[in-house]
Structure formats: C-alpha cells, structure tokens
C-alpha cells in the first residue's frame, strides 16, 4: 500500500459542495493522522488499488432534496417566508381558547398553500433529478479486460482508462495519455468554460503517446500523484510516476469535465462544444470524478434575486400588518370598555375567564387583541405568494420559454427563463448595460467592401445604411446575391468586377494585384488543416485578420502554408486568366501590430528578388506615412473611408513600398540590433519600424463589417423610444466602441456628445515620466476637470424639453477614477441624463461597478446583457441579467436570469413579456389586497355590533376557503391571460413601456384607490345586509338568525369580489368566464352540501339548512341583485370617469385599434402595419426624419491576443484567460482621440 494518506477535504468556500462534504478518511493502520498530506495518489488502470481510497464516484447530483430530507428541508424553506410563519403563528393561536374561530380556519389555507408549494418544489427537484440521471447515464468507453467497454458515466472510477471520441464530451477530469493525432496533441473546444471559441491544444507527455490501443493501454501502470480536488480551472500540479520515472504534469495534459448545466443541454442536443475536436479519439486516465471535478467544484451558486415589485409588495404587506394591528387595537379597546356585568345574560358574575372579566379590563384588552388577530388574519393574503409564484412560473415556463417570436431557428435556441422571479421586473427596466462583442455584434468579421485605386468595390448594404434609407422612405431591395457568388463565413462580398479573375479587366488591375498580395502576405495568420481552399482553417488572433486572409483567398490569392520564413500563396489569374501557380514569398521581417503603432508591416522578398514592404493599419497612421504624389487617389480613398465609416464598417488602409536592397540591408541591421536588445525592446523596435514605414504608396482600403446581430439598431431604437437608456460597456478600444455605437443608433451626430478620455497629450506626457502616484493624481484631476466641464455643459439641457439628446463616451482608465467616491456623483448625474453611454476598455470588474453604481445610485431597474465570461460579474450585479445563448460559452447564460439567442429578442422580452408581467402582477397584487381587505372589513364592522367580543361573522369554513377556493382561481387567470394590447402594438408603441418604468400601476395612490373601494364595498356588504335582516324576510314571518345573515353576506361578497375581477380585465377569454362562474358555482355547491348535511364531526350545527331557508325567500334574490350592483357601482363609475377624462396611454391605443381584426399568428403582425392612421403617420415621419450622415471613419484593428496565440502554438502554456478583455483594457495604448 502506498505511503500516501488521502484526505478528501472539500473547499469550505464552496457553498454548493458543502452538502456533499466527504468525510475525512485516512487509510492508516489504527492510527489517525492529524495532518495528512494534501495529495492524492491514483493508480491508473488498477481499480483494486484505488478502491482503498474510496474516491467519489462519477455520478453527480444537483438535487436540493432527497426522499428523507424533502419534508423537513422543504418545510423549513417555506417557513422562511414571513407570511407563512405568520399564518403558522395564527394557526397555533387559533387552537387556544382565545380564538373565535376553529383552528381549521387558518390551518386549511396554510396547509393548502404549503402543500402546493411543496408539490412545486418536488416537481422542480424531480426535473433536476431527471437531468442528473440523463447525464449520469451518458455512455463512455472504458478499458476493461483488454478491450473498450461501453459504460455509463456514473460507473466511472478514478484511475480508469477511458477513450473519448471526436466530438465526445469528457466525463470527468482526465489526464491525457495518447491521441490519434501526431505528437500526442488533441484539440478541445472550451467554449462552455470560458466562452472562447477557438480551439485549445492539449498535449500528452511523450512517454505515454503509445498507449492508444487497448492492448497497449492495458500495460499502462502509472501512478498519478496530484493535488486534492479544487476549483481552480487553470492550474494543476501533479506528477506521473511511470516505470519509476517521475514526470511533472501541467494543466496542458488535463481535460476538464464540462459544466453539468451545459451537459443537460448537451443531452438534449442544444449546445455544441465542450468537446474533443479534430481528433479521432484520445485515451486518458480519470483523475477527478463527479463532484470533485474542477468544474463541479466551480459551479456557482447563482444568488437568487428578488424583484423590486416583490420588495414593494413587502411594504404593502407591512402596511397591511399595521392596519391589522390598529384594527385589533381599536377592537380590543372597545372590548375593554364594553365588557360590563350589567349584561347579565353574558354570565359575568363568577368564575369568568380572564378574557371577559370586567374587573381585569387591561387583560381583556390584551387577550381580545389575540382574538381579533386570529379573526382578522384574512387581511394578510396568504395565498398571494403562492399565486404569484404560480403565475410567474407559468409565465416564464409557458410564455417566455415557448414564445415563437423569441425562438432562434439558426442556432435552434428558444428563449429560456432561468428564474421565474423576475418576470415583472422586465417590465420596468430603465437602464440596459450591454456588452458589445457577441451581444450587439456577432463577433463575426466579414470582408464587406473595399476601395482599390480610388474605386469602391462591393455591393452590399449594411444594417445602418438600410436603416437610413428606410427612414428616408425608400424601399430597400434585397440585393440579389446571385447563387454563383462566393459566400462563406467571414466573406460577405460580391462584386463581379473583382471575383473569379475579373479584376484583370479593371483599369487599375495592378493596384488590385498589390492589394490582394498585401492581404495574402501581410498578416500573422496560421493556416491549419488540409491545404485546399475549401477545407483550410485560418487561426488568427483577431477575426479581422482572418477575414482579410479569407478575402485574399476568395480573390484568388490563396495563402496555404507558412513556415517561419516563408509564406506560400497559390495565386490564380495572375499571368493569365485561369492559370494557377504556387508562389512563395520569403518573409524577412514582421513588424508586429500593437495598439500604439496601429499598423502591421511585413517585409517580403518575391521569388524574383523584389523587396516589398506591405503595411496595413488605421487610416490616420497610414496617411501620415504616405509618400508625396497621388493626392487624387489619397483623397478619393479618404472619402471612401468616411463613407465606410458612416456605414459602420471597420476600415483598414493598405499600402506598400518597394525597398531597395541596400536600403533594406542597412535597416535590417538596425532592426536585428533592436530585436536583440534587452532593454526597452518594444520601444526600440517601434522606433526602428518608423524608419522604414514611410513614403508608403496607398493601395486602397478594406471595409470589414463587424456584423451587428440581426435587428440590433431597430431594437435599440425601439427600446430607446420606450424610455430605456443604453450603456455599452466594452473592452474594445474607443474608436471601435464609438463605431459600433454609431452603427447601433446609440450615438448620432445630432447628439451632444461628451468624450472623457485618458488619451490626451497631457496625460500621455505625465505617463511618459512613469511616476505612478503622479500619474494617478494627474489623471484624477483631469477626469474631474473633464467631468465637471461636461456636467456644466450638459446641465443646461437637463431641463430643456427639446434639447438634443446627450451621449457620453468614457474610457476604462478614466472610469477607474470617475468611479472614485468623490467623483462618482458627478459621473452618475451626467450618465443618468444621457440617452446613451459608451464605456470602452473597461474590465469585467468595472462593468460590474458601473452597473451597481446605477443600480444603487439611481434606484432604477437595471438590466445587463452579455454573452461571455467577462460579462458574468455585470450580469450578476444588475437587477436582471440576460445571457446570450446559443453561440458562445455558457458562463454568461449560467449566471443569467434569462437567456435569449439574439439581442433583438430583448424587444419581445421587455416590451411584450415584461410589460405584461408587470401589468398583470400589479393587477394580481392589487386585487388580492382589495379582496382580502374588503372581506376582512365586513368582519371588522361586525365586531362593532358584537360588543367587541371578537365573534366571527362567517362560518369557519367560509373564512378558510375564501382565499384558497372561492376567490383563488380567477385572479390567477387574470395573471396569466390579461392582455391590454396585442404584442405587435406594444412593439409599435414602445412608449407604453414608460408606464412600467414610472411604476404607474403599483403606487400608493393606486393602493389608496383600491383601499377606498374595499372600504366602500365592505360597508355596503355589511350595512345592506344588516338592514335586510331587521324584519322578517318572507311570508312566514320567521326571522333570520346570525348564520343566515352571514351566509347571505358571504354570498354577496363572493359574487361581488368575483365580478369585480371581470371589471378589471382588459380581455375576457373563456377561461375568465369559466373561472369566475366556476368560483361562484363552487361556493353555491359548497354551501348546498355543507348546510345540507349534519356530520358527527366537531362542527357547529348553526349552518344546518341555512342556504335552503335563504333560497326559499324571494328577498334573497332581490338582495343578491342589489348588493353587488350597489357595491360595484362606484367602481364602475370610477373606471368610466378615469377612462373618459384621464385615460391611460394603453387605453387610447386600445381605442385606436379596437376595430382591428385580432388575427392570430404572424399574419396579424404584418396586417396591423398598414393601418397607420394619418396623424400617426405624420408623427412617425417627424420622429424619423433622416439624420445627417455621420462624419467619422471606422477603424478596425485590435488583435493583442497575438502573442499568446503563438506561445500556445509553440507548446508553451499560456493560461486560457477568461478575462482576456480585461487584459486588453489595461493595455496601454496611445491613439489620438478623434
């Protein structure tokens, strides 16, 4: 036995794992070692040896409960809710003699509510269990008895040798032993872990390469000594002992298990990724299993968020509690005063219990308080929370998740509400914080247009251009992309003049040739895979670069191989049409891109010895370095650049320079010297580069479309009409960010823009000096100055109604200081008054800081939307987090509250689902408030007529079933189906959303109105019915007793309260009618039964035959008609007056469209479009007058990931940093701001 003791010590910091804490287990002979080394030893391929260590199995469980813990744990969860606890208290209280009601009164609703909640919990847990099961039963090949045997994941054990095939998922954390690829390399996709879409390389140790076949693998007897399970995804320390040789292991040999959330979707075939790629199969040894895998230990406990409405609801409940308290106090005081021996029939002479003892009046008050507390407990709507939860659950699981308008067919992703807590919060969002890459844009760079030799090529139209022309009223014709045009991902270009060699016929074909060569040669892209145009894959540090090389390929300059010194290009049509030749260019120097230089150059030698420097870069830097002459071309190209820029395209200028050999040689010496210098190498290299990158000749410019997600600009415009303000938080550079902001309509030239940038000369000067404290101090002062100046300027527009909209652009470095407590207020004031804010070069942490600044500082509802791991903090910081699902990683989705496939679905999510949820829930809450108050107040009025004794007015069962049976269902139906206007209309009039932002339907004013109705109605109920009871009610002359009167009153209450619901509905489906009618019917059926039977159970005989007596009198019917009408008259009048004189916006729109045919399905959506009324049309036109074409050009070049890419290619391990953007943001760059 090995000398290692094993202690499985889960990390205490992992809340999720605490329930599965493994018992510390030491395998020693009779002696417990206090401190065992934190190492585990794994015997590969030896189950017996590992058995002693009792490693955890590979099955996972994410369920909250099991059969035994379900009841206690579930109940505990339920009683953490104040309302439930209160009702438990009241139930206990009602078992005491002080209670006027039978315990059943409070017990029944409580237990029904609890039962319902528990069933729901159980159902959800059952689903989790099923998911776990599906995962645990996935199959994998395991080495057993010299062959691969297919086993379920859960049967996997530590030390097993397994085989994972291409596109397969790793069932546990495994050590890579061998791969079918040469050099023991395998490729994995880790999109689910870090959101990075590029493939990662893992390489097995050379010693283990051979263990590929089962026969060989059987012989493998290694011993892995490694760290204990932990949650660090990017580290691994351990050794492999094989044949008495100790080999160090690195993370490069470890393949991680996938997230289980991800897995569940894999099981249902949603997510591709998280898997082995480009490798037939690999063989590996299992080292961590099940809950001990790094990913499982890392699985986050997403903090559950409560919606703002619910928090306001708490206040309402609190108000109800205080009402309850004062009612009780009032009643109790009354009883203290009332109680007197003079009422001889009460038998108060001797042996009087404390509650009625006239000589202990103070005690009477106290005890009557308790009595009344149980009597009036119905004022607290116990079923409210359960109803709201049910409504929200159905809303999210049936409406949001199944909305066809939010289903994205391309990625096969429906929307998914990961929590049902926040539905109505979606209806009140005022600030949206959006990530750029992958959210607004597709992170898909496509070569779109180019300008060569003063001529524009490319026929496409960007979204922005489409938007502009559409606003001008010109119908956009879909450009027919003819079927023979070349189209692939990254190349969205069509122009017959250039493709398939046609460029030879262009007047400037020489420029074209240079242009294409520049594209094919001047880059740092690596080709991968088969050397054929169809199959090759380009590995580029930035998608821009890949798009350019791809473009060259499509133009007939196919770059297919790279060696350290050569680039091989298969050129077509160069000599003559149709001829293909392979040409190799010797790469002499690469002057790399960095953000200071904003350009990249390559010096290459043609096969014929020609020496050329190709350069591509930002227009500003290239134009500075152009040689004289060619002004016409330069000017034309500059115009084109502006044109591209205003269309939202990212531009690059291409230039070249022929070098004389001697000039080059002398320069190269300097270059080599600089390259080998040890100090300030970067700076020296830059300086040397300056020497040769001059007198360039401009070839042309490329325009790459950083493709916006579909429908983003229009979505943003709609949402901003809805009063939502956008903050774009991106790690990108300022220019790129501004570009996209323009593209998305977030910024335009009509706006008053404030730019706060750290890219000023003054700051740069200070930075040169390098004194950190001085830099910090200076920048802070500068930021303060800039902020103050902007604020002063902006404040004149704050109050002006028709002033220009404001926009703010700020970069990450300034933000660091602006978020300082002294400047925060200024930033907030400025930011809140801007229609859109763009923060560039921000780190993930800053994203979260900005989000919580607005969340806490402005007390407005915030929403964050993002797709990558760098957005997680922001998503969790905001009120609502939305993850873009379907394309990139799962981390953002897993941290989010809602996941949608496309940014544009926000429109549906907010304007339709959010708005409806909000309106519906407000109605539900108000209705609950109203119905319970009205009901309880009748009791209260009765109390005054009973000598404040706390006698109940209603029978126990009436009171207990009132909330859970007689009035429960209709309100849920309203919460589900109430529909003020149709979805197309709510998207057509996004301004309606402002009602939610201003919280129009959940104000104290609204509460007061409802309270007024409750009071009025309860008075009608009580006093009308009292008047009714004063004389006999039919020919027989007999009088009614208490229970007849109360049954009469209760019938009126049930009918009225249910009818009131119909009055507040905007649309009445047959479910409304069924539920309302059903509730009333159920009441009658109940009372027919209840008063018709006598049971031996402990119940009062009072109710016997009551309803039949009542129904035998004609006045019953006369009263039943009178009371509801009289009670609802005032409500109806209020509704009429409100609608007539103070209509809500949605009511006007209802009226405008009341004659619309309510078509179902998408045809109705289109149909309503044509029905613009003339007035409207005019106002729409005014609001959408074409805007001035923006005067800025785009600039694309941002590829700082280059180094890490090459490093990983050469086998060095560079941590796959999820926070790459952070690094970019912190990188120093010196660009002149525009």
């Amino acid at each position: 036995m090995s000398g290692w003791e094993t202690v499985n010590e889960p990390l205490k910091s992992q809340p999720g794992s605490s329930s599965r804490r493994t018992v510390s287990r030491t395998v020693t002979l009779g002696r417990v070692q206090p401190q065992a080394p934190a190492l585990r030893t794994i015997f590969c391929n030896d189950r017996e040896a590992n058995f002693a260590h009792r490693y955890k199995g590979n099955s996972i469980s994410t369920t909250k409960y099991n059969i035994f813990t379900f009841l206690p744990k579930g109940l505990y969860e339920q009683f953490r809710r104040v309302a439930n606890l209160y009702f438990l208290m009241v139930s206990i209280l009602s078992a005491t003699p002080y209670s006027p009601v039978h315990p059943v009164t409070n017990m029944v609703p409580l237990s029904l509510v609890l039962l319902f909640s528990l069933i729901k919990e159980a159902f959800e847990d059952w689903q989790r269990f099923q998911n776990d099961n599906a995962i645990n039963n996935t199959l994998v090949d395991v080495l057993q008895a010299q062959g691969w045997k297919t086993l379920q994941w859960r049967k996997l054990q530590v030390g097993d040798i397994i085989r994972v095939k291409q596109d397969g998922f790793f069932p546990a954390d495994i050590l890579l032993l061998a791969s079918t690829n040469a050099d023991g390399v395998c490729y994995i996709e880790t999109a689910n872990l870090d959101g990075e879409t590029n493939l990662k390389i893992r390489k097995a140790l050379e010693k283990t390469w051979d263990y590929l076949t089962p026969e060989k693998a059987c012989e493998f007897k290694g011993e892995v000594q490694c760290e204990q399970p932990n949650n660090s995804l990017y580290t691994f320390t351990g050794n492999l002992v094989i044949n008495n040789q100790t080999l160090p292991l690195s993370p490069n040999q470890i393949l991680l298990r996938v997230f289980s959330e991800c897995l569940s979707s894999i099981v249902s075939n949603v997510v591709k990724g998280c898997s082995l790629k480009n490798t037939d199969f690999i063989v590996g040894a299992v080292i961590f299993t099940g809950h001990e895998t790094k990913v499982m230990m890392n699985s986050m406990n997403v903090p559950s968020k409560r919606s703002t409405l619910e928090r306001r609801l708490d206040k309402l409940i609190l108000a109800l509690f205080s009402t309850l308290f004062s009612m009780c106090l009032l009643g109790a005081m009354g009883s203290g005063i009332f109680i007197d021996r003079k009422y001889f029939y009460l038998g108060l002479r001797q042996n009087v219990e404390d509650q009625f003892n006239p000589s202990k009046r103070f005690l009477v008050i106290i005890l009557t308080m308790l009595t009344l507390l149980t009597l009036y407990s119905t004022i607290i709507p116990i079923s409210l929370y359960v109803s709201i939860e049910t409504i929200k659950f159905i809303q999210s699981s049936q409406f949001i998740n199944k909305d066809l308008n939010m289903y994205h067919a391309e990625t096969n992703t429906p929307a998914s509400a990961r929590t049902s807590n926040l539905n109505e919060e979606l209806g009140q969002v005022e600030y949206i914080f959006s990530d750029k890459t992958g959210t607004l844009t597709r992170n898909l760079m496509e070569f779109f247009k180019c300008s060569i030799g003063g001529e524009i090529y490319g026929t496409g139209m960007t979204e922005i251009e489409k938007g502009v022309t559409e606003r001008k009223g010109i119908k956009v014709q879909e450009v027919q992309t003819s079927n023979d045009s070349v189209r692939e991902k990254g190349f969205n270009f069509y122009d017959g003049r250039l493709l398939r060699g046609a460029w030879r016929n262009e007047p400037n074909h020489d420029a074209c040739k240079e242009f294409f060569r520049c594209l094919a040669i001047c880059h740092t892209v690596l080709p991968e895979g088969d050397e054929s145009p169809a199959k090759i894959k380009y590995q580029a540090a930035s998608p821009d670069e890949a798009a350019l090389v791809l473009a060259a390929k499509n133009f007939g300059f196919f770059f297919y191989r790279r060696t350290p010194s050569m680039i091989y290009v298969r050129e077509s049509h160069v000599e003559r049409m149709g001829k293909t030749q392979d040409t190799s260019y010797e790469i002499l120097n690469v002057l790399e891109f960095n953000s200071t230089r904003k350009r990249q150059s390559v010096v290459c030698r043609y096969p014929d010895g020609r020496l050329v420097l190709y350069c591509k870069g930002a227009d500003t830097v290239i134009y500075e370095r152009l040689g004289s002459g060619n002004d016409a071309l330069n000017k034309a190209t500059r115009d084109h650049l502006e044109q591209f820029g205003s269309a939202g395209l990212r531009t690059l200028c291409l230039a070249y320079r022929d070098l004389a050999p001697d000039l080059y040689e002398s320069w190269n010496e300097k270059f080599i010297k600089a390259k080998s210098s040890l100090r300030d190498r970067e700076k020296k290299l830059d300086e040397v580069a300056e020497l040769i990158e001059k007198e360039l000749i401009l070839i042309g410019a490329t325009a790459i479309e950083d493709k916006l997600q579909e429908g983003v600009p229009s979505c943003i415009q709609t949402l901003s009409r809805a009063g939502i303000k956008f903050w774009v938080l991106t790690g990108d550079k300022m220019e790129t960010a501004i570009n996209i902001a323009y593209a998305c309509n977030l910024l335009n030239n009509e706006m008053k823009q404030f730019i706060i940038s750290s890219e000023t000369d003054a700051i740069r000067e200070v930075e040169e000096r390098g004194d950190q404290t001085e830099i910090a101090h200076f920048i802070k002062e500068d930021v303060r100055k800039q902020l103050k100046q902007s604020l002063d300027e902006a404040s004149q527009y704050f109050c002006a109604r028709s002033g220009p909209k404001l926009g703010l652009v700020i970069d990450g470095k300034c933000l660091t200081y602006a978020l300082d407590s002294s400047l925060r207020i200024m930033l907030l004031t400025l930011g809140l008054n801007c229609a859109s804010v763009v923060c560039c070069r921000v780190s993930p942490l800053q994203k979260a800081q900005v989000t919580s600044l607005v969340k806490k500082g402005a007390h407005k509802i915030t929403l964050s939307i993002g797709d990558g791991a760098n957005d997680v903090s922001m998503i969790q910081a905001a009120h609502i987090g939305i993850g873009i699902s379907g394309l990139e990683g799962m981390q953002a989705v897993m941290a989010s509250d809602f996941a949608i496939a496309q940014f544009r679905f926000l429109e549906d999510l907010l304007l339709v689902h959010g708005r409806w949820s909000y309106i519906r829930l407000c109605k539900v809450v108000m209705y609950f408030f109203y119905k319970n108050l009205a009901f309880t107040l009748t009791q209260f009025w009765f109390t005054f007529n009973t000598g404040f004794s706390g006698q109940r007015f209603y029978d126990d069962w009436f009171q207990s079933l009132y909330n859970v049976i007689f009035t429960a269902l209709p309100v849920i139906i309203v919460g589900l189906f109430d529909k003020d206007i149709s979805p197309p209309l709510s998207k057509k009039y996004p301004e309606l959303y402002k009602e939610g932002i201003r919280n129009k339907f959940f104000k104290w004013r609204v509460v007061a109105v409802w309270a007024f109705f409750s009071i009025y109605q309860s008075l009608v109920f009580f006093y009308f019915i009292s008047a009714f009871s004063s004389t006999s009610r039919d020919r027989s002359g007999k009088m009614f007793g208490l229970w007849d009167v109360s049954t009469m009153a209760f019938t009126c209450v049930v009918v009225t309260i249910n009818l009131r619901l119909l009055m507040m509905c905007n649309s009445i489906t047959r479910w409304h009618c069924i539920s309302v009618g059903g509730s009333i019917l159920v009441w009658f059926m109940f009372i027919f039964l209840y008063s018709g039977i006598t049971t031996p159970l402990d119940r009062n005989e009072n109710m016997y035959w009551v309803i039949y007596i009542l129904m035998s009198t004609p006045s019953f019917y006369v009263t039943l008609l009178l009371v509801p009408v009289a009670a609802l008259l005032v409500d109806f009048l209020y509704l009429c007056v409100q609608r007539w004189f103070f209509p809500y916006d949605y009511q006007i729109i209802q009226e405008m469209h009341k004659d619309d045919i309510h078509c179902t399905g998408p045809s109705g959506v289109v149909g309503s479009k044509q029905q613009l009324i003339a007035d409207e049309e005019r106002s729409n036109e005014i609001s959408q007058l074409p805007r001035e074409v923006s005067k800025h050009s785009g600039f694309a070049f941002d590829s700082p990931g280059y180094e890490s890419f090459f490093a990983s290619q050469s086998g060095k391990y560079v941590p796959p940093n999820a926070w790459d953007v952070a690094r970019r943001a912190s990188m120093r760059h010196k660009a002149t701001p525009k």
Partner: protein
Amino acid sequence: MSSNTPSSSAGGVGSADSAAPRRNSKRPKYSKFTQQELPACKPILTPRWVISAFMLVSIVFIPIGVVSLFASRDVVEIVDRYETACVPANFRNDKVSFIQNETTNKICTRSLTVPKRMKQPIYVYYQLDNFYQNHRRYVKSRSDSQLKDNSSWDDVSSCKPEDDANGMPIVPCGLIAWSLFNDTYNFSLNNQQLAVNKRGISWKSDRDSKFGSDVFPRNFQNGTLIGGKRLDPNVSLSEQEDLIVWMRTAALPTFRKLYGKIERDLQPNEVIQVTLENNYNTYSFNGKKRLVLSTTSWLGGKNDFLGIAYLTVGGLCFFLALSFTVVYLVKPRRLGDPSYLSWNRNPGGH
C-alpha cells in the same frame, strides 16, 4: 422604426417555420395558450357602453324598487314600546330592582289601535334593543349535541358558566337557553280573547334536526340565579318553540323574534287590549322592549330599505347616464385620439 419592427419579428417566425421539421428541434410547439393568443373579447368602456350600462341598471332597478316599496307599504305594522311604560311610576328610578323583585306585580296592560285593515296571519314579535345575542361568550354557550340527542344530555362542556346547577348538568345548558325571554302577551279584542298560535313559529329545520324530540328539560333554571323563562320539563325541546326561536341567535344587537301568530283579520280602528307580563330584565343594560304586530308581504315584513335602495341605485344610474350623455354631447373625447397619448402631449417630458 416601427415599420421595421413587426416585419423583422414576422420574418423570424417565418424562418422558424421552415426549420421546424428538423429533428431535435427545440422549436416550441405552437399553441394559442403559449403564444398568448387565446380568443378573447376585449370590452372597452366606450361612451355608448357606459351610458347603456347605466341606463340598463336604472331600467331594471327602478321598477324593482317601486314594486318592493309597494310591497313594504302594504304591510301593516303596529309597534309598541313598553319597557318604561310597564314599570310603575314609583319604580321608574330603579327599574332593575322592580324587575328583579319577585313580588312586584309585573302585569301591565296596553291598548293598540289597528291603523289599517290587517289580514291574517298577523305575526306577533318582541323586539329587543342593545341585547348582544351575538356576543362571543353568549353565542358559543350552548351544546348542540345535547339539544339534539338525549344520549349526550350531559355534554355541557361548552356551556360555561351555565353548565350545571347543584352538580347536575342542565338541559338545555348554556347562557342562551338560560336567558330565555319570558315576557308574555295576551291579546283581547272587545273583551274577547284573541288566540295566539305559538305553533310553527320556528324554522322547520331547527325543530326537526337541531332539537331532539326525546330531549326534555332537566334541572333547568335551578341555579342561584334565574335568567329567564322556565320550561315545562314534560315537553320535549323540539316542541318548545319559544326556546328554538330564541336559540337561533340574532345577528345584530337589535332584533325581533317571533312570538306567535294571530290567525284572524283585524279591522281598522279596532283596539286590541294587550295584557302583558313584564318579566324580562332589559333594564340593567338599558335595553328597550317592543311589541310588534305585523302582517307580511311576499317580500317579508315592513322594510322600506330594499325599495329605497333599489330606487336610489336606479335613480343614480339614470342620473349618471344622463350626465354622461350630456358630457358626451357637449365635450366629447374622440376615441383613440393619438394626441392624448402622454408622449404626444409633452414630447420629451419625463
């Protein structure tokens, strides 16, 4: 961009349709429920609706009100308050001692004039004021099982403090039975005895199901204090209709209870002599006592409330319908006028 928006969403659905048949598609299935397209009627309170609703209510309510009022007016009711008049003048300052004194003469004579012809049956009620029959301590002080069934005659747990007397359970127990009203009325017309029928004054369901025919009063009013009427121990509870009526507790502190029926017509201006025995103590709590003779209509006793309420609601609705019509004619709001929209009224305002 409103023109753009619907088409884009429509496009999304359209493209989804084409992809639908794919296997493993996560495309949600279409249903009217999940797409929230359930057929619904959308009532809008347009002026026409408002006015017609109010009109409808007034048209329905005013006639009912008139009919009810007439029904109520048909009823002839004679009310005589006697609690003070029936106390001899020398006891007026200390009515309680008068009533509690066993020896005083409680007989009192009243004469009632019939205002209008009263058709039989004429119901005789007593009405008490300020008597909290609905007090919690009072209401629960009874034993339903004991009243119903002889076998549980000793089930008096809920009857405190009138559960037993001299160590024996009381039947019927409890405060309600103990405080049974015990004034008696004898009517005579022209020196002729008017028979008062005391049968059938209680609800049949009470007689049949709540009060057992094999349950007889035991040990009743044998305590130190006498609360009210004594019961004949040889008559079963189901036949003690006064008790049954009394034990159907009233809802409010002012209540009437049926005493009996006079089964003959009374002509106008006839004078009825009432010889009443003023036994019941309402003096200690200043309760009033009234004797009521009343006929009934199809709607019950004399109670204008229903009629007046109907007329008021109907009239109010008529008035509202009129005023809304006037408003509609004088200063109409054009339905669905976009200029009313808040963002059109003050563009850019918050």
